[in-house]
């Protein structure tokens, strides 16, 4: 029994060496802070693991979880595990805040931390925390609409009034715009609103706002008194005033914690009532272009020489301010002289809202009567400032028309009233009777995957040809093949030389060594290896050249007594010298 007790004691001691007891601590890095400053609360668990501690809600105290980490270390064979949970706590209201003891369950046992106290000491002034119940109507921002020019108290249908639209957004808000700006009221149309708003920072009512500014124009589509308002959808997140962020003590500019309130809403401008008047019918010219504003001719181009029945292009430019978009091309006058055809037009804005600028019209015209004719362009428009229709004419130009007068054709209403000829069935080919044509897709074939695949295959084949030919020519190059054959032979004979040297086989040695040198020399001198003899070597090399010396030795031993044991080393040295002295090819 004593033995069992001793064994148990030893076991416990050993276990204790390797396993530490569980320790749980809770600490504050500061027990005293200023209002709005944050203190760090840390829970540390050694020798065990647990779930995140639940810090109870304490009135006026902000507690926010920052994160956890785990550290495992092995020191002198002992494993230590430390798990920690970090919180920031603080308050904007001075006072004494008690953080109670917190019980944690670890490895089936309960461990309790010590209670802590945080003192929030003000500097004699109480921090003004905004009353969360007070509603600020512009807390999430607002939208405003301003007319950018001095306007009368009324407008006309189709008249475009330039406007400035501004979105006032709180500086600390996070904003996502969800839609373009649109009129909320049905009687108005927005024109040419700038795609990208200008951004600026402005103060209003002692608050800083981020301001987005768009430029555009607004026009009414029906007469009467109307309220105009614009709207735009956005998702805006603003800081939650009831839980303001705390400051880090060592970095006061850095705010941590705090919540945001996010809302999807529609920013709307306040209703503005505008009286819209219809364009007067009295005095309305027959060829009224539809334009409302103030315009003038800026340039015209009419060829001087014409021929009846032959079209030429005429061009004119009109500049001014107003509703260019619905302006039609002014006709050439006198109108009975001309046949005109629809052409092209191009508007060049002078401002961001495209309210002022110039418009260029180009179209084809055919003169119908020969002779010298004064011609001009006439533009009828409505001037809203004067409240009356205006007609302007371009400077008169005299043109010369040659050729025969064209036959009168019924114009305008006469042509419309004319009975259309019955469709002559013979003029329309009969429908196809046999469906011989194959089925086809209405999508062009070059957008299909099959086209890309086949083209890729063709491309690969096209490249494979020349690449393969280049590779083949290199492989089959006779010079290269010859060099490679010689190199192989040299390697074989060098090997034989070495073997014969080891076996002290004089006949084989000299034959192989000579062959090796002959092969090297044949590459350099472009001779057949077998044709290279001592005589050739003596002619081409110096008399004291190691090559000459070795060839001489080879001949001596070929026709004389074999070398002795001492001679072999010297012979091999001579052979190596001969190899080193070989001429380069």
């Amino acid at each position: 029994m004593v033995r069992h007790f001793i064994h148990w004691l030893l076991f416990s001691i050993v276990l204790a060496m390797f396993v530490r007891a569980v320790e749980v601590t809770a600490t504050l890095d500061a027990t005293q802070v200023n209002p709005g400053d944050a203190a760090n609360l840390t829970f540390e668990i050694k020798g065990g693991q647990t779930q995140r501690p639940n810090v109870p809600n304490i009135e006026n105290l902000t507690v926010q979880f920052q994160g956890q980490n785990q550290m495992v270390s092995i020191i002198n064979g002992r494993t230590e595990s430390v798990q920690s949970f970090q919180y920031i706590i603080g308050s904007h209201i001075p006072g004494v805040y008690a953080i109670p003891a917190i019980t944690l369950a670890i490895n089936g046992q309960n461990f309790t931390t010590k209670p802590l106290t945080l003192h929030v000491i003000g500097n004699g002034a109480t921090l003004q925390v905004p009353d969360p119940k007070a509603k600020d109507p512009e807390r999430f921002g607002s939208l405003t609409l301003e007319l950018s020019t001095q306007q009368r108290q009324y407008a006309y249908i189709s008249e475009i009034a330039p406007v400035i639209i501004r979105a006032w957004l709180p500086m600390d808000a996070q904003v996502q715009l969800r839609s373009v700006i649109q009129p909320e009221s049905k009687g108005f149309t927005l024109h040419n609103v700038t795609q990208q708003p200008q951004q600026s920072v402005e103060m209003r009512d002692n608050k800083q706002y981020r301001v987005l500014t768009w430029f555009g124009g607004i026009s009414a589509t029906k007469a009467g008194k109307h309220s105009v308002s614009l709207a735009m959808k956005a998702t805006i997140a603003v800081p939650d005033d009831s839980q303001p962020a705390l400051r880090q003590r060592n970095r006061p500019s850095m705010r941590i914690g705090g919540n945001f309130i996010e809302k999807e809403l529609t920013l709307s401008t306040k209703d503005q009532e505008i009286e819209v008047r219809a364009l007067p019918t009295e005095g309305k010219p027959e060829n009224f272009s539809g334009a409302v504003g103030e315009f003038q001719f800026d340039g015209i181009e009419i060829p001087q020489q014409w021929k009846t029945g032959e079209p030429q292009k005429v061009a004119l430019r009109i500049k001014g301010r107003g509703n260019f978009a619905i302006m039609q091309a002014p006709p050439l006058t006198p109108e009975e002289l001309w046949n005109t055809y629809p052409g092209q037009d191009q508007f060049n804005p002078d401002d961001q809202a495209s309210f002022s600028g110039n418009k260029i019209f180009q179209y084809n015209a055919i003169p119908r009567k020969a002779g010298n004719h004064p011609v001009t362009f006439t533009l009828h428009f409505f001037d809203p400032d004067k409240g009356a229709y205006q007609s302007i004419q371009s400077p008169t130009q005299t043109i010369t028309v040659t050729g025969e007068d064209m036959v009168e054709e019924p114009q305008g209403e006469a042509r419309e009233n004319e009975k259309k000829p019955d469709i002559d069935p013979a003029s329309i080919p009969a429908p196809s009777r046999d469906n011989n044509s194959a089925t086809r897709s209405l999508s062009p074939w070059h957008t299909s995957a099959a086209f890309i695949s086949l083209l890729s295959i063709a491309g690969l084949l096209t490249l494979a040809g020349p690449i393969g030919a280049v590779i083949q020519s290199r492989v089959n190059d006779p010079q290269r093949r010859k060099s490679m054959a010689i190199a192989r032979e040299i390697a074989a004979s060098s090997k034989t030389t070495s073997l014969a040297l080891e076996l002290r086989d004089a006949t084989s040695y000299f034959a192989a060594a000579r062959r090796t040198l002959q092969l090297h020399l044949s590459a350099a001198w472009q001779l057949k290896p077998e044709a290279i003899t001592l005589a050739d070597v003596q002619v081409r090399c110096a008399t004291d050249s190691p090559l000459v010396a070795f060839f001489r030795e080879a001949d001596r031993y070929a026709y004389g007594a074999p070398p002795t044991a001492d001679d072999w080393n010297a012979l091999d040295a001579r052979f190596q010298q001969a190899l080193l002295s070989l001429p380069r090819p």
Partner: protein
Amino acid sequence: MRSLFLILLLVCTCLTDLRADMFADALALEKQGQHAQAAARYESMISQQQASRSVLFNLGNCYYESRNYGKSILAYERALLINPRAADVRKNLALTRKEAFSNEVINLPKGPLHALSRSEWAACIVICALVLGVSSISAWLRPLWRKSAIIIGVLALLPLAFGILALKQRHTESARAVVTASTAKLLLSPFSSADEITSCPPGSLMQVIRVQGDYRYLQLIPSNSCGWLHHSEVELIEK
């Protein structure tokens, strides 16, 4: 394997017969003067991927007879996608445009680059590229054929270059559309109460520039006026 082949052959034969039956029915309705029903039959054939030049041409005729000029012109334009050289389609298209008082295309595109449809040019490019590839391989593997292979390869380059040029020049045709509504008006802004710029007769040819919600921003050909139309009033020629 043999039985699988026979089954496939049987299925293809059945489908061909079915297609021929549908066409015959539609043609019979057309001859009886029931153009609307005939048009519906042709439209169902097209929705089942059975569009052919004949089907589209007949559909165009049916819509013409029903005074639906917008859809008639759309059908003829689609028939020209398949075969731009079809003289009967071009003639009927010109007649329908005149009848609709639509914007005249000053000239239907002509020239060598428009002689083939874009699909035909694509096929030409692939064939020439394959010929070039095979010539290249032949020149490498068969030295005896090298000279001929090179000549054939060089000759294949010319139509290949033409095809690439044609596709490049005509890439904007993907965005061409036809007004199908009888009373379409080009608007200043993409909503229904916006100011009108001009009216577009049915069959007017347009170029789609961009899409925003339910509206399309288009340019009228050839007057170049730009504006917005609801997507239900205009249809792309290519699908």
